[in-house]
């Protein structure tokens, strides 16, 4: 446990001392602020089926596909490239502590990005005071959205860690992560779009499609509905990905 804590603190410090994390965070906040402002402007002109906060969370796949691979690409692939992974494993820190600390550091950073966005609607509501529409900083939407990011982030980050656990190239790790996350994001919609009406015995396909729909899960979380299926998908998937990453790191040459 001491090795995990030590490594986690080191990973977080290293991540936040590097300019790339700050650049990614700035880009993230800039994008979210723009979407939030645009959505708030749209809402001020007439009734919309979503609140500005919900609109921001609906853009979730964009930072997921562009920024998360950047955050995970260095975690293990860079250590392999520079040879420091072997040096790390020559200490008391086992492969489990290494994988978990790196995953936890990226997960905390990812959730931290989204949590920092939550300041925007709260700031906007505080600035407008009593004249602010209560939906501007809808706490349920903010809390639900953050809960979704936190829970789904376990799998998304674990996929990134897994993709970097077997390669020495951070760029390849980022590309693999992007492809896997894209596949996970669109697979629900693609499966749902298959013309399965005339097919026999494919109910499981529809069921799988329903389980894989990210944005439906986001809506559930924002509405306060916590189903066990997405929890099992994200947490179980994360456990499997991190388990395989552990095996990849553990294996002596």
């Amino acid at each position, binding site marked *: 446990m*001491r090795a995990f804590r*030590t490594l986690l603190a080191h990973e977080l410090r290293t991540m936040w*001392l590097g300019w790339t994390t700050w650049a990614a965070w700035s880009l993230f906040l800039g994008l979210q602020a723009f979407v939030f402002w645009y959505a708030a402007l749209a809402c001020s002109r007439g009734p919309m089926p979503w609140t500005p906060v919900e609109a921001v969370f609906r853009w979730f796949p964009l930072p997921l596909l562009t920024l998360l691979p950047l955050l995970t690409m260095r975690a293990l692939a860079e250590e392999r490239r520079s*040879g420091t992974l*072997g040096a790390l494993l*020559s*200490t*008391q820190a086992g492969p489990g502590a290494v994988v978990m600390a790196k995953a936890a550091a990226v997960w905390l950073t990812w959730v931290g990005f989204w949590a920092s966005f939550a300041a925007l609607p709260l700031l906007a509501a505080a600035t407008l005071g009593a004249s602010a529409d209560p939906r501007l900083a809808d706490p349920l939407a903010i809390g639900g959205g953050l809960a979704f990011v936190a829970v789904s982030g376990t799998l998304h980050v674990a996929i990134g860690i897994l993709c970097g656990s077997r390669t020495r190239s951070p760029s390849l790790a980022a590309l693999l992560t992007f492809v896997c996350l894209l596949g996970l994001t669109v697979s629900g919609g693609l499966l749902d779009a298959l013309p399965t009406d005339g097919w026999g015995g494919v109910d499981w396909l529809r069921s799988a499609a329903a389980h894989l729909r990210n944005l439906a899960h986001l809506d559930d979380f924002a509405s306060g509905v916590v189903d066990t299926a997405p929890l099992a998908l994200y947490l179980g998937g994360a456990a499997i990905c991190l388990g395989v990453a552990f095996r990849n790191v553990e294996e*002596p040459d």
Partner: protein
Amino acid sequence: MGDAASQTVPALEVRGLTRRYGKLTAVDAVSFAVAPGEIVGFLGPNGAGKSTTLRILAGRLLATEGSAFVGGVSVAAEPAAARRRLAHMPENNPLPEDTRVREYLELRARLKGVDEERVGLRVDQVLHDCDLRERAGSLIGHLSKGYRQRVGIADALVAEPEVVLLDEPTIGLDPHQVLGIRDLLRRLRGKLAVLISSHILSEVEQVCDRVVIIHRGKLVAQGRPDDLRRELLPPPALAVGTDAGAAAVGAVAARLDPAARASEDGPGRVRVELPRGSPARERLLGALAEAGVPVRSLSEEAAGLEAVFLAATRREAREAPAA
């Protein structure tokens, strides 16, 4: 480590270690031991199997056959316990470029299980021992090769291991840096067991108590350099600086020992071969003076470790077909 029982257990012991990659045998039934406090050179040309052996000892590579023990603890059966007793600085000494020296050493100390209250103390100590105090706040990526090697050695020492494995610690360093690393290694003598892998034989000879020589994965010789010279090399010849010529010097030498052989060895230089232990070795200078042979200098030819290494590998090549 102070009791008698612990002194009898080798700090590092390798028994029949073998590593195969398909049909290629990189390390072939290598056996040797390193006593506590001893500095041993692990010699061999590039590709001899030195780094492979060290990686097996560090637990980063599995042996195909054989076993290795660190302080009596099996590297294969109890890797975590063996890791606590051993530190390994790999050949390319990988270090994180974007971390400061002190911060890196503190991290390594914690990961190696140094008590939290002793981390600062140990880091200060190794910074001092490795002459790194002035660079403690520098980014590792900004350090010269020599300082990076020092950081690698400081990392190896920070948790006070029983055994340190150093893979080519002076490779790529300039002469000043080599001297610095050599002094640092000498200071470790008697404190912990050190196995230094190198193909720079003259370098190893100046630091190590004993050498282990491997060639094409096989152990070809081990022992103290002087013992190996006696075992593997002909007796050292005497070099006489004189213009009198080989015949005059040879005649005097033959009077002292009929087995003496003299030959010209360049202008103004005669080489005299004598059996080991021949009394003529000590009496030749006086005899030449008595005989009126003018002598400018007389010295015993010193055979370097290179000659020992070549003789050992030649012997291995001769014995291999019979084995």
